[in-house]
Each structure stands twice: as structure tokens, then as C-alpha cells.
């Protein structure tokens, strides 16, 4: 199948991009690598009048290291993160996550911002940036705001992005050198979307602990940070966490999500 006949612009400034988005009344789609949007366009599941290509906007393209965090432009590809400097703890974790996304040819085009904006519940960045405690810088015609990755997603394929807003940066707090990270996803087939996933960060030096369940039908679920990890990994805790979702009562889903949590915890505590 071929997409509908859309128009296309590639603005070179952030201001121009958000202006174009604002004019669109929802029939405008921002696009970077098109690795999530492309299949939907080709299948005509999305039928925009205008695509706004954000890959020429300088603010989206760089990665920079700050004292407290790594700042990743939303337009940075998975492959660039995969090939990043793995001697630095945070970047090593990001590289590990990136290397497990889909396939290299997809990672060469697909971007971290695009993946987050697409908000497929099964996607890697959604669950991982939430577990890492990342923040997103959103810019729209009315200005900019910072939101946590955890609150950014409101449901399956739904985010708090206004029609005229773009993700500009993903800000990942620097992990301590001794921090431990665990991420497990259950995929029936390598590179395809996960049936269950979980990510765990144990960062004693910063006092940051988080366990997140992904690949639910909706937003990633942050498990209560106050409980010990071993308790979080129990099937009862996972069943309870899934109870408000469409997966409630699904014996298979509860079982594999519980296993994912257990494995992520094991990886982070081994």
C-alpha cells in the first residue's frame, strides 16, 4: 500500500516547526525517522495532509553531557545511542537499550523522540526513560515545558503533547558509577514488539530506585518505589499493578509481566 497524498516541509528552526504544527488542526504530523509513522502511513492508518520533518532542527540533533544529566536531542537516532561512548555509565545503559530496538536498519533512522511521541506501549524507550527518571523538554507555540517521562504518556499511543508541541530533548539523569540497571523484554521474535517488559534502576548513591512495567495496553506502570524489590517482583504485586489496565485478569499477561519484573530485578541486583 502507498500513503495518501500528503504535503511535506522540512523547517530548519524550532519556531517554524511548531508554527506549522499549530496551523494544521490535527492533520499535520511531525516526523523524524518515520520508522513508526512510516508503516502507518504506508498502510493508510494515518492520513495526514502535511508532514513536518523535524530532522533539520539543530536543537533536536545533538547529544550533550551536563554535570547531572545526559541531554539527548529528540532527533538522535537509536543507532547513534547504540554506538555511543560506553565507558560512561549512563551512555552505556542507553547504548544497551538502543541496541535491542528493532533492527539496525531501523535504528539508523528511528529516533528516541519519535519513539516516545509514538507511545507504543511495547516500545523500549517508553519504559526505559520512565525507569531512568528522564525528563522531556517539550516546546510549542506557547513556550516550553518540562515533563517527566512517567507522566508524558497518558495511554496507549497517547501522550500529553499538544498538537503544536514537539519533544526537543530527552534529559536522562546521570547514573552513579555503581548504579545497577536491569531491563527485560519478552519478545516472541527478535526485534518485534514486546509482550511484556520491565526495567529496574537501583542507584544507591543517588537514593534512586525504580521498577517500571512496560508493554501494557497503556502507559508504563511505575511500581511503588517504597517496597523492596523482591516484593515488587511477586506475581501478586504485578497482578495488582495491572488490575487497572486492559490486561487485568489475563493470566498469561500477569504471568509474563511478573516474570519480566523478576528478571529485570535479578539483572539489577545480581
Amino acid at each position, binding site marked *: 500500500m502507498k500513503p495518501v*497524498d500528503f504535503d511535506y516541509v522540512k523547517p530548519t528552526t524550532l519556531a517554524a516547526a511548531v508554527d506549522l504544527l499549530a496551523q494544521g488542526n490535527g492533520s499535520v504530523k511531525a516526523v523524524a525517522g518515520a520508522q513508526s509513522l512510516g508503516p502507518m502511513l504506508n498502510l493508510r492508518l494515518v492520513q495526514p495532509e502535511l508532514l513536518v520533518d523535524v530532522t533539520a532542527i539543530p536543537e533536536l540533533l545533538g547529544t550533550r553531557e551536563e554535570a547531572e544529566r545526559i541531554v539527548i536531542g529528540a532527533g538522535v537516532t537509536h543507532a547513534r545511542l547504540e554506538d555511543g561512548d560506553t565507558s560512561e555509565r549512563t551512555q552505556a545503559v542507553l547504548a544497551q537499550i538502543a541496541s535491542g530496538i528493532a533492527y539496525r536498519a531501523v535504528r539508523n*533512522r528511528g529516533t528516541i523522540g519519535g519513539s516516545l511521541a509514538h507511545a507504543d506501549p511495547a516500545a523500549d524507550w517508553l519504559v526505559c526513560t520512565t525507569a531512568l527518571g528522564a525528563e522531556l523538554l517539550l516546546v510549542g507555540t506557547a513556550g516550553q515545558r518540562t515533563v517527566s517521562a512517567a507522566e508524558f504518556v497518558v495511554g496507549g499511543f497517547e501522550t500529553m503533547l499538544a498538537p503544536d508541541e514537539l519533544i526537543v530533548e530527552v534529559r536522562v539523569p546521570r547514573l552513579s558509577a555503581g548504579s545497577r540497571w536491569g531491563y527485560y523484554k519478552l519478545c516472541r521474535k527478535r526485534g518485534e514488539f514486546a509482550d511484556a517488559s520491565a526495567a529496574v534502576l537501583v542507584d544507591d548513591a543517588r537514593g534512586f530506585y525504580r521498577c517500571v512495567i512496560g508493554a501494557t495496553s497503556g502507559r508504563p506502570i511505575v511500581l511503588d518505589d517504597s517496597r523492596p524489590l523482591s516484593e515488587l517482583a511477586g506475581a501478586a504485586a504485578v497482578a495488582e499493578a495491572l488490575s487497572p489496565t486492559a490486561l487485568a485478569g489475563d493470566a498469561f499477561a500477569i504471568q509474563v509481566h511478573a516474570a519480566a519484573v523478576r528478571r529485570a530485578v535479578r539483572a539489577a541486583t545480581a
Partner: protein
Amino acid sequence: MSTASPNARLVSLTVNGRPVARLAAPRTHLADFLREGELLTGTHLGCEQGVCGACTLLLDGEPVRGCLAYAVACEGRAVTTIEGLDQDETAARLREAFTAEHALQCGFCTPGMLISARDVVERLPDADDARVRVEMSGNLCRCTGYVGIVKAIRRVLDDRKAG
């Protein structure tokens, strides 16, 4: 390839080292642009869903899905298709290994397979078979069961190490 659209515009690319400028609607993906416009039919379309990898080609030297890259979004960039790898040394070694190891049957997945295999050989010279399989997992083959392809890539990796 759609050119009748009011949205059509001139797209300029370097294709296999040669400048190309052609009118294309923005909805035209790179594979269609090359196949229908340039008659470079070695880039095959197996799904147009970004899964099968048959349309894999090089964009500025990196493998990408031809069906998920719209030509208009590649303005000014360099595209290399299977036809552009005739003189490429790694590709030549892979072609030799593919035929020696019976790594192709119908040949439909083969161009995309070679593009990805070339990337693996050049990017990951130390890859073991398990890594080769992981790195190649974005290319589907329905004929060979992958056995010959893994052996062919192994052969080229080993040959390159041996010098």
C-alpha cells in the same frame, strides 16, 4: 511512483555516485523512487511495513529501509543500491561467499540481505555466529533457512581477518 500530485517537487539525490533529480510526490518512498524513476529494480519491496528488509539500501553509507524513507526526506543525500555495489570489495567477497555457501534461492531477499551483511562485516569484524544472527535479524528469507547466509558471512569475516 506518484508525480501527478500537486505536492510533487524536484528531489535531488546522489544515486550510486551519480546525481539524480526527479519530480516526486512526498509520499513516494525511496524504493519506489529508485525502482520506478531510475529503473534500479534491484531494491525489492517485500512488505512496505518495515519488517522484511528486502528493500534495505544504503543512505549515506548506512543501511536503511527503502520503504520507510521518503525520497523527499533524503534530499541532497547519497544513496547506494545493490547495483552500486558491483565494484565494492566487501560486496564482491560476499557475493562469492553467498554463491559458494548456497545462501540464496529465489534471490528476492538477496539484495537487502547483502546490504545488511556488508554492514555487519564492516561494522562488526569480530562478530561470532550468534552476533551475526542478531545483527541480520531484520532481514527475512523464506527460502534458505538462513543456514547458508550465516556461513557466507562467517566465511567473509574469517577471510578478512586472515587478510
